[in-house]
């Protein structure tokens, strides 16, 4: 049997596609997930309170949104210490290759999904011109490595109780946060390049074999970069939330040993 059906050929309006699957679920979830995080993080940074547990009877717990804690005498009360530092991890995520993909798709709909039309717009310049700043990512990586050290020190402080070494749920939360941030940072595409990916002939350079091994290691982590990106994003917000709740007395930070 053969019948003719009318069908325009080219899709040119935003969202037009022949795809029958639920292609919009991906970009919508990313949009909601990232928006939720941005709203929460902005609120918490401007909230400028309940970010530290610093009492004589417990260990020192500092929210990762405020670490390293920068305070000085005569600091204007409206200036949140969070603002002073959050640009660094924020910039790291903003210029991350995974998040770029995520927000170009979910926020800029460029493209919304594969094989789905965009709104017809002129002068697409991709990551040239305005978006050339994305190339700064490796500098944010250097800062992120520094932040990992600082956050690890925070985990150390969270284990020092008045009567000696100990761990609470809070220290476990901070430890999990550092581990996930570490996995996210060590799976970075720029790190993968700098650590060994830039070399073509490993047998021709000093420490080539070692650098090849390091490149292989980062490459294994890199395959799951997206998962580490989301897991660490969730965890950093949760760590802050936990400390907020403990500091207001809503949660009690239970000591494990």
């Amino acid at each position, binding site marked *: 049997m053969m019948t003719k059906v009318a*069908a325009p050929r080219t899709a040119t309006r935003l969202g037009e*596609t022949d795809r029958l699957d639920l292609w919009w679920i991906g970009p919508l979830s990313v949009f909601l997930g990232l928006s939720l995080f941005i709203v929460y993080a902005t609120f918490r940074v401007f909230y400028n309170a309940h970010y530290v547990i610093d009492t004589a009877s417990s260990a020192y717990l500092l929210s990762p949104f405020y670490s390293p804690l920068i305070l000085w005498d005569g600091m204007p009360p409206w200036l949140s210490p969070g603002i002073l530092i959050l640009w660094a991890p924020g910039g790291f995520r903003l210029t991350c290759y995974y998040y770029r993909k995520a927000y170009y798709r979910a926020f800029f709909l460029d493209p919304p999904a594969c*094989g789905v039309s965009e709104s017809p717009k002129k002068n697409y310049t991709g990551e040239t011109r305005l978006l050339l700043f994305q190339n700064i990512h490796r500098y944010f990586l250097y800062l992120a490595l520094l932040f990992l050290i600082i956050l690890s020190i925070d985990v150390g402080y969270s284990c020092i109780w008045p009567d000696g070494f100990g761990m609470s749920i809070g220290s476990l939360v901070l430890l999990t946060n550092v581990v996930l941030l570490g996995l996210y940072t060590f799976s970075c595409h720029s790190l993968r390049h700098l650590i060994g990916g830039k070399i073509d002939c490993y047998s021709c350079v000093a420490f080539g074999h070692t650098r090849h091994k390091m490149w292989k290691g980062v490459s294994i982590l890199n395959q799951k970069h997206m998962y580490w990106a989301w897991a660490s994003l969730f965890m950093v917000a949760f760590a802050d939330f936990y400390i907020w709740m403990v500091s207001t007395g809503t949660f009690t930070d239970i000591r494990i040993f």
Partner: protein
Amino acid sequence: MSNVTTLQIYRGDNESGEMVEYQVPRNPGMVVLDAVHKVQSIHSPDLAVRWNCKAGKCGSCSAEVNGKPKLMCMDRLNKYPDDATISIRPMKTFPIVKDLVCDVSWNYEVNKKIPAFKIRKGERKYYQYEADRVQEFRKCIECFLCQNVCHVLREHQLKDEFCGPRFLVRVAGLEMHPLDTEDRSELLKNELGVGLCNITKCCTEVCPESIAITDNAIIPLKERVVDRFFDPLGWIARKLFKKT
């Protein structure tokens, strides 16, 4: 199980065309290309379709099945519900010659811009572990599905400015080869337009050879361009250690 499959196939050329509906018998193990061949043999011997191997290796039978860029010979019919109508269109990014056949010759023109392998002088020994990385890129069967789905070419039509993912894969295979000495970073930044790729990964999603196009070819090439043009510390280090 219904023993009939309904297909809607684009019939026409670049100027005008329409979707035409056909019904063909469905047998176990059939792929979409088999169904298209049935249309040819039962209803319309003049239906144009390009194919060669029916094994996912020649890269000829690329099309859009229900809006998804695919090799028709690797797309099993039993994945679709029995009563579903399957739509088949030619690739959107290239001019249509007839029905499902596109003119992909633009790709061969782009290929000519890429300088060939330039082997290093002297010792030419290298090890398997150094070659592993480039072997992934040699799997490319030139189906051009990645070129078709890439929004820079498909939506923005920047064929003069951007070479497309397939050729970034080719450049990566040359650039990362342990014996190659050619530097293509300037070409990548300018003529090949690597900066136009916004790493949204549709090429990776459709590649039938499962080449990690964005992660293993494009992003490393972007990083090489950063090394060369956008990293002041790297620039100072190169000056200090007199590397080019």
